[in-house]
């Protein structure tokens, strides 16, 4: 798989986690792709923290409206039934537990469900934006990421970078497998048969609990 195929593969598997009627917030980058792979019988509401529910596709020349933007500042559209609101209400929705699922990328994620995604001290300080509130408030937090970064594990025993949130991640989905954070640790629920279990273990900095993992299926 090349880089784009890998991203699509991950996004496609994440899409299977979403249920009809879910209110979902997708982070910038790979998570945004998830919207492209929803089964036709699953209708979700997409929230954008800058103040809308009902995020639609990129506009055409005919419906381009510069007053409708997503959290990345790009011009988007609003679907039927969608609406706008201010930032205070937007974060009441997020922090108040009204978002069913949030999908985000990461710099590091660990076996305790802690996430690092907003700062590399001395190198890159973009800020946390809405990520801390999203990870803290959403009912289910899915990290969608490549398993490693230039061969170095991103899934660790414990994050070394400053955290976005502690113990809030529920699931990690990569091109190698599907992992779930449980009370007793990080479980490998599914694996991509293009890799051996040994290869997955070696690419993971955390201890994986492996009990009869299933093969990662993208089609129902």
């Amino acid at each position, binding site marked *: 798989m090349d880089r784009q195929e890998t991203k699509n593969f991950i996004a496609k598997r994440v899409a299977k986690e979403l249920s009809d009627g879910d209110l979902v917030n997708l982070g910038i980058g790979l998570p945004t792709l998830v919207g492209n792979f929803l089964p036709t019988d699953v209708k979700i509401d997409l929230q954008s923290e800058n103040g809308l529910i009902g995020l639609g596709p990129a506009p055409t020349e005919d419906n381009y409206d510069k*007053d409708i933007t997503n959290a990345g500042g790009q011009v988007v559209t609003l679907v039927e039934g969608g609406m706008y609101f201010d930032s*205070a209400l937007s974060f009441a929705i997020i922090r108040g537990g009204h978002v069913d699922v949030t999908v985000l990328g990461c710099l590091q994620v660990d076996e305790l469900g802690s996430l690092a995604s907003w700062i590399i001290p001395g190198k890159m300080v973009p800020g946390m934006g809405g990520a801390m509130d999203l990870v803290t408030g959403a009912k289910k937090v899915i990290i969608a990421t490549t398993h490693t970064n230039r061969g170095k594990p991103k899934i660790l025993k414990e994050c070394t970078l400053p955290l976005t949130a502690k113990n809030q991640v529920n699931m990690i989905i990569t091109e190698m497998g599907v992992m779930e954070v449980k009370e007793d640790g990080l479980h490998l629920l599914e694996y991509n048969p293009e890799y051996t279990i040994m290869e997955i273990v070696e690419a993971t900095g955390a201890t994986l609990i492996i009990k009869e993992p299933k093969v990662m299926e993208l089609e129902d």
Partner: protein
Amino acid sequence: MKEIIKLSELKNHVFDGMSIMVGGFMAVGTPEKIMDELVRLNVKDLTIICNDAGFVDLGVGKLIANSQVKTLIASHIGLNPEAGRLMSEGLMECILVPQGTLAEQIRAGGAGLGGFLTPTGLGTIVEKGKKIVTVDSKDFILELPIRADLALLYGTTVDKYGNTNFTKTTRNFNPVMATATDKVIVLAREIVERIDPDNVDTPHVFIDYIIKEEE
């Protein structure tokens, strides 16, 4: 009836060292013409409270690039490399705040609250130096209100009384900022006789001056 002032009169309302809340999200919903006038007036040592640092040539990013900002309170500065540079070289203080916490701090500032309890930031550097309060055996961070001298907002429709509406995603931080400063100036895309009283986003009591976008 609210006073409609000219953009050139902005100089009577700004001074070096003041704190200003600026509406907008990635410069969407930012009163851009007022940003240009602030750059022209070159007021210095500002404390700017805004969702983000905008872009180098858009939103509050213009003020940052023109070295007018002493302290920036924002949730995100990633799209303005100049903000990152000034911050890392120690030329601008940058206080990064989770977006929902920033919105609520401003809301608290405008609503007469002494602060609020949030789980956001627990176990991260955000909680450093802050009081942790336990309610029903759950931990929360005590976050304090924020107020400022002036709010600069971008209204879509403003009536002659000062009632203001914000359209679509230009809304973002504008309504909440209207409540949390000593003085509020709104740049109006359009001024009308009357907004339907059932559909006012920000009541005129919060608005002090209106500047028309196209004078």
